[in-house]
């Protein structure tokens, strides 16, 4: 690993001051992704600013009936938090579908949003990669691209966002609270991550000198009818080929409101409001779910090795919607898909 300086932030203002003062510094919390990338020589910060002592470790109820999750709440604590399990089980399920318990114990909620892609070319510093070195080219487009994106890609980048947690946050319409030199602002989760376009080096719309302080969940948690279905090469501890987070508000067999997002298929969790809207007021059925999934995947485009993902994502969407409508969510320990 490269040499770097170390500083410990005492409060949020201190953290913002430290990061603003040094353009090549980075924050570190859990370190599960950053340390790995530093060992691979992909990330080369001159200083790490340790934010783990900041008071951002609580889950609090908001006046509007939602929850405000401190950015430093570990992923495992969040997944097992009684209020998350009770009101937002799709979030709990998605978190437990990702990584290992050791990594979940280390990883922070805010850091999970800032994970970088696991594209092998991004990690391999001897190959061109526009995300790692802008303008150098994309090795994945004509390379081994089995795990890559099928939606929202650009000629510059076909990487996917690796998070499971963020897919559930997208379906729940969470918001991200950040603080920077200019003060506080809130970013909707749908606007937080970016599509690659011609600037794939920028994963998110977070400013370089801003810090995530909290994730806020609105009141609606879809606790009765939800599922997080993740399809991967191993039963556990692998990134998604395709994943689906679903939340339904049901009235008998009728869908009052539908939310669903895909993971593993794009540079950000993928939602399509038009596809969700087709289910509102409809009866839960194979027909209606197939129509919604067709719409969701309509503009999907495969590459040499990942065209299978289009049909896989379509079927996974139908299956997850069915699981949610029946009130039989996917188990994250018994992996048989019902």
């Amino acid at each position, binding site marked *: *690993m*490269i*040499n*770097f*300086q*170390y500083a410990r932030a005492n409060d949020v203002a201190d953290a913002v001051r430290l*990061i603003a003062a040094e*353009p*090549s510094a*980075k*924050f*570190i919390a859990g*370190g*599960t992704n950053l*340390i*790995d990338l*530093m*060992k691979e020589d*992909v*990330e*080369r910060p*001159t200083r*790490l600013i*340790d*934010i*783990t002592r900041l008071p951002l470790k609580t889950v609090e109820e908001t006046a509007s009936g939602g929850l405000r999750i401190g950015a430093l709440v570990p992923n*495992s604590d969040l997944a*097992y938090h009684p209020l998350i399990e009770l009101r937002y089980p799709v979030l709990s399920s998605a978190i437990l579908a990702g*990584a*290992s*318990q*050791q*990594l979940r*114990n*280390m990883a*922070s909620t*805010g*850091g999970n*949003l*800032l994970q970088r892609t696991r594209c092998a070319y991004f990690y391999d510093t001897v190959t061109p990669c526009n*995300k*790692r*070195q*802008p303008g150098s080219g994309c090795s994945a487009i004509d390379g081994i691209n089995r795990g890559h994106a099928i939606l929202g890609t650009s000629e510059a980048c076909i990487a996917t966002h690796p998070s499971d947690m963020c897919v559930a946050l997208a379906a729940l319409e969470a918001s991200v609270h950040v603080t920077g030199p200019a003060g506080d602002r809130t970013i909707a989760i749908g606007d937080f991550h970016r599509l690659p376009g011609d600037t794939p*080096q*920028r*994963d*998110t719309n*977070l400013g*370089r*000198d*801003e*810090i*995530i302080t909290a994730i806020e969940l609105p009141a609606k948690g879809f606790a009765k009818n939800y599922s997080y279905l993740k399809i991967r090469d191993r*039963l*556990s*501890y692998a990134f998604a080929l395709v994943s689906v987070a679903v939340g339904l508000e049901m009235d008998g067999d009728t869908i009052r409101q539908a939310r669903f997002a895909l993971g593993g298929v794009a540079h950000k969790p993928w939602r399509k409001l038009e596809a969700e809207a087709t289910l509102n007021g409809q009866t839960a059925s194979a027909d209606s779910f197939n129509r919604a999934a067709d719409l969701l995947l309509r503009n999907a485009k495969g590459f040499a090795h990942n065209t299978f993902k289009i049909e896989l994502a379509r079927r996974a969407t139908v299956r997850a919607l069915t699981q949610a409508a029946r009130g039989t969510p996917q188990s*994250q*320990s*018994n992996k048989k898909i019902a």
Partner: protein
Amino acid sequence: MAQESTGQRTEHLIAVPDKISVTMTVNRVETRISVAPWTTLLDALRDRLDLTGTKKGCDHGQCGACTVLIDGRRVNSCLTLAVMKDGAEVTTIEGLATNGALHPLQQAFIDHDAFQCGYCTPGQICSAVGLIAEGKAKSDDEIRELMSGNICRCAAYPNIVAAIRQVMGGTS
């Protein structure tokens, strides 16, 4: 948690920082060491404290051989910077036995022949200690899922599950 483009590759010239003093309680003994910022907890344990029971497998958080307990929670020590753990309580495989008696999980791994080459075993056992403390695993499926961060290339998995099950008090 701001981020930036990794951007152009520029020469990485920074002054070598002074080593930083860190005090940790390692296996119930207060331990003070001076480390560079980039020293991982794994390297500090093995190279500085001579606690070589904790293994370096992949060094990227993918195999679990480096699993230790920090403040009672299992973590990958290869992705942990020692400098960030000032004041922490660290338990490694060397710290599990008490008064010369093996920890029940150590004994259970022997009873069930839950290893072959043994390289992953310290990580497996520390991980299992964490698993049992968490109290979330009830069934064999749940043990397997929550132990998935520990790879055993000899594939002793069925016996590892049986050993953990024995200590949890259930029958497999």
